[in-house]
């Protein structure tokens, strides 16, 4: 990730925050504003799900099932038991590393 891209991200992320604070997003009420709010609220669900899939199954431009899937299942179990964020991550890493060591 180049410095140019880091700068673009910094400017963009701050731009959205400023937009909201100065009321440009809030004062425009009505159907358009509601639609935008509905769209934006759903983006994390769609993107996080896509990130999970891509990071677990993707390898370059193909789909491969490997030790990462074991890590994913472990993280789902940890989350369903209300484990804290770091525990979820560490459990997934441990499961994947163990599977790799055993298989490899």
């Amino acid at each position: 990730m180049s410095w140019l891209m880091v700068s673009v991200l910094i400017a963009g992320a701050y731009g959205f925050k400023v937009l909201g604070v100065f009321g440009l997003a809030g004062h425009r009420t009505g159907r358009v504003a509601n639609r935008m709010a509905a769209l934006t609220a759903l983006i994390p669900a769609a993107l996080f799900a896509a990130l999970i899939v891509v990071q677990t199954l993707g390898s370059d431009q193909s789909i491969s099932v490997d030790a990462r899937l074991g890590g994913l299942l472990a993280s789902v179990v940890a989350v369903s038991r209300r484990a804290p964020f770091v525990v979820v991550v560490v459990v997934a890493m441990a499961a994947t590393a163990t599977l790799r060591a055993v298989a490899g």
Partner: protein
Amino acid sequence: MLAVAVGIVGVTFGVLADAAGLSLAKVVAMSALVFTGASQFAAVSVIDGGGSGAAAVGSAMLLAARNALYGPVVARGLPRSTAGRLLGAQFVIDETTAMSSVQDNPDDAGDAFWWTGLWLWSFWVIGSVGGALVGSVLGEPETWGLDAAFPAAFVALIMPHLRSSPGRFAALGGAGLAIVAIPFTPAGVPLLVAATAVIPVSIIATRATGNGVRP
């Protein structure tokens, strides 16, 4: 308590950013100046997967857009001056909005906003630096299963968004589109394709309730 938890998540970000090849300076720049966790995780995750900088920034921006919706919620606690608002804007994220919104009057809302913002920002930056330093001594990421840390982090992050049925449909649609797009598009692009899943879901949800979905 919240700040310590955020600091630990910051450590995770630092480790993963290091694994994705970001220099310490870039990690600090991102945590201090981008300061919106989900976007940062998404960006380094795309880079780690071999995606282009543009694809990384694209996914991160889509996630950062929701901070624009928080502005009106925290505005009552912010100073009237332009400079004060410009400074406060940097702290407008999920957590500060949540803490500010539960206060009874504008003064308390302002206090909650600034203190939460300052504490979280400090711990987030310190945690990220610590993580990047830890990451640099870890060595080969695969041995530690570090590549499994990315999806696990997103499993934890997605949970609150699955409580509503539009959220669940958006997640299913996003995952489905991503799988279909992997073989046909360069790394990072499947995420942008997946984001389009929110359009039909939000149209249906808006029709069903008449006023859309609240975060």
